[in-house]
C-alpha cells in the first residue's frame, strides 16, 4: 500500500503534460485541446529563455538585452491513453516554425484526486 491509498483501488494511470508556448498561441491551443476531449488545464504567465535567448530593446541610445521573454506555461493532466494525442495537438497548434515556439514535457503522475468527490486518477480528471 502506497502512501496515498491502496494501489489496487486506483484507476488508470495519468500523465502531466507541461508545455511552454508563445502567449499569443494560447487560445488556439486551448480550442484544439478541448476539441480532442481535454476537460481542464492550468495556465501561468512565465518568463524564460531557450534557444531563442531573448531580444534587444532600444530606448533612445540605450540598448538592453531582454534575456527572459514572456511565455505561457500550460499544464494538462490526462489519462495515459490521451497523452500522445495531447502532445501532438499542442505541437501542431503552437508551432510557428520560428525559433521560440517552446517545449513540451511529459511526466508520470503518481496520484490524482478530485477534491469534491474523492474520485481518483483518471476518474478525477
Amino acid at each position, binding site marked *: 500500500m502506497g502512501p496515498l491509498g491502496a494501489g489496487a483501488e486506483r484507476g488508470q494511470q495519468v500523465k502531466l503534460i507541461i508545455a511552454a508556448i508563445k502567449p499569443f498561441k494560447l487560445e488556439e491551443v486551448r480550442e484544439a485541446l478541448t476539441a480532442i476531449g481535454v476537460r481542464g488545464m492550468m495556465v501561468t504567465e512565465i518568463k524564460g529563455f531557450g534557444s531563442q535567448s531573448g531580444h534587444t530593446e532600444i530606448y*533612445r*541610445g540605450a540598448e538592453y538585452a*531582454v534575456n527572459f521573454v514572456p511565455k505561457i506555461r500550460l499544464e494538462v493532466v490526462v489519462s495515459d491513453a490521451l497523452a500522445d494525442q495531447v502532445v501532438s495537438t499542442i505541437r501542431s497548434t503552437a508551432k510557428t516554425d520560428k525559433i521560440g515556439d517552446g517545449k513540451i514535457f511529459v511526466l508520470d503522475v503518481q496520484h490524482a484526486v478530485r477534491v469534491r468527490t474523492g474520485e481518483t486518477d483518471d476518474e478525477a480528471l
Partner: protein
Amino acid sequence: MTIQNKLAGLGALSASLLAGLPALAQEAAAEAVPVMDKGDVSWMMISTVLVLFMTVPGLALFYGGLVRSKNMLSILMQTTVIACVMMIIWVVYGYSASFGGSTSPWWGGTAKLFLAGVTADSMSATFSAGYVIPEYLFIVFQMTFAAITPALIIGAFAERVKFKAVLAFSVLWGTFSYFPIAHMVWDANGYLFVKGAIDFAGGTVVHINAGIAALIGCIVIGKRVGYGKDNMAPHSMVMTMIGASMLWVGWFGFNVGSNLEANGGATLAMINTFIATAAATLAWCALEGLQRGKASMLGAASGMVAGLVAITPACGTVGPMGAIALGVIAVAVCYFFVTVVKLKLKYDDSLDVFGIHGVGGIIGAVLTGVFSAGSLGGVKGDDYAMGAQLWIQIEGVLITVVWSAVVSYVAYKLVDLTIGLRVDNDTERQGLDLISHGEQAYHS
C-alpha cells in the same frame, strides 16, 4: 516677456501730477489711463494653470514613466514638492529678485520682498503700450515658470539622489541661477534684455539653464549603480506618452501666455507651438526609421519635447515655416546627442535632460536669431541685422551656460558636503520609493 510693473505706478503718478496742472489734464488723461482688458486677463489666468499642468502631472508622468517602477514615486514626489517649494520662495523673495524693479542688470532687488506693496489694484505692463494686466497675475504666471524649471533638472540624476538633497539644491539653484537669469533676460533693466536678446518664452531662462544644471548634476553625482549592465528600460511608455502630451498642451500656456495678451501675436506663438512640435516629432520618428527600421513611442515623445523646447524662445518672432525648420534641425542635433554623444562621453544623464532641454534650448535660442528674419518668414523687417542678432543670441546662450554651470557646481558641492547628494548602494538597488518615501507605486 519684457516687463516692468511700473505702468500702474506711472499712471497714478501722472494722475496726481495732472491734478495740479488742470490745463493739461484733459488732453493727457486720454492717453495716460492704462487699460486692463478682461480678455487678456482671462487668457493669462488660463495660461498660468496650463503651465502648472505641465509640471503636475505632465512632467511628473513624462519622467515617471521613464524610470524603473521601483523609483516611480520618487520622481512624482520630487517634481511635486519642488514645484511647491519654488512657489513659496517665489512669493517670499524670488519675484522681487527677478522683477523687483531694481535698475541693476543682474537682479531685481529687494523692493518687493514678501510681495511688498502689491495689491489687487497693482498692474504690470504688457507688450502693448497702455495695456496692463494685474500684477498678481504676472506674479503667478512667472511663478509657474520658476516652479517647473528646477523640476526639469531632476531627470538627469533620477533614481539615485536623496529627496532632501534635491529640495536643497532646488532652493540654492533657483535663488542663484533661475532668479538672476530671469531678470537678465526678461526684466526691462536686465543685461540681456537691454542688449536685445530674443527669448520669447524661456529658451535660455528655463531650458538651457536647467539643461546645463542637469549635465553638471549627472557628472557630479555619477552614474547609477549597474549603469550599462542592468536593464534600466523605462517602466511605462504609456505614462511617458500621457506626460509628454500634457506637456504639449500645457506648453500653449507657456509659449502663448508669454505674449501676455490675447491678440494676433499670441496666435503666432500658438501656431508655431503646434507646427514646430509636429515637425520635430515626425523628424525623430524618421531618424529612427532610417537608422534602425522602427519608429518608437519614446522617440516620438522625445521629438515632441525637443520641438517644444526649441520653439520656446522663437515662437513669438518666427513664422510657421521657420518653425518647421527649427523643429527638424533641433531634433537632428538632440538625436545625435542622446544616441551618440552621451554614450561616447559616458555620462549618465538618465532621462536626457541635457540632451533634449540643454541642446534643444541652445539650438532654439541660436536659430531664433536666424528664423526671425522677415526673409525667412519671421516678423523682423528689412532693418533686421541677422548677424548682429545671432551674436546677441549666442552671447545669451554663453552667459546662461557659464552662469548655470558655476552656480550648479557650487550648489551641488554645498549640498553634498551638508546633506549628501546620493543614497547608499542598497537603497539605490531596492529603489527610492520604499526607502525614501515608505510606499510603492504598484502592488501586484
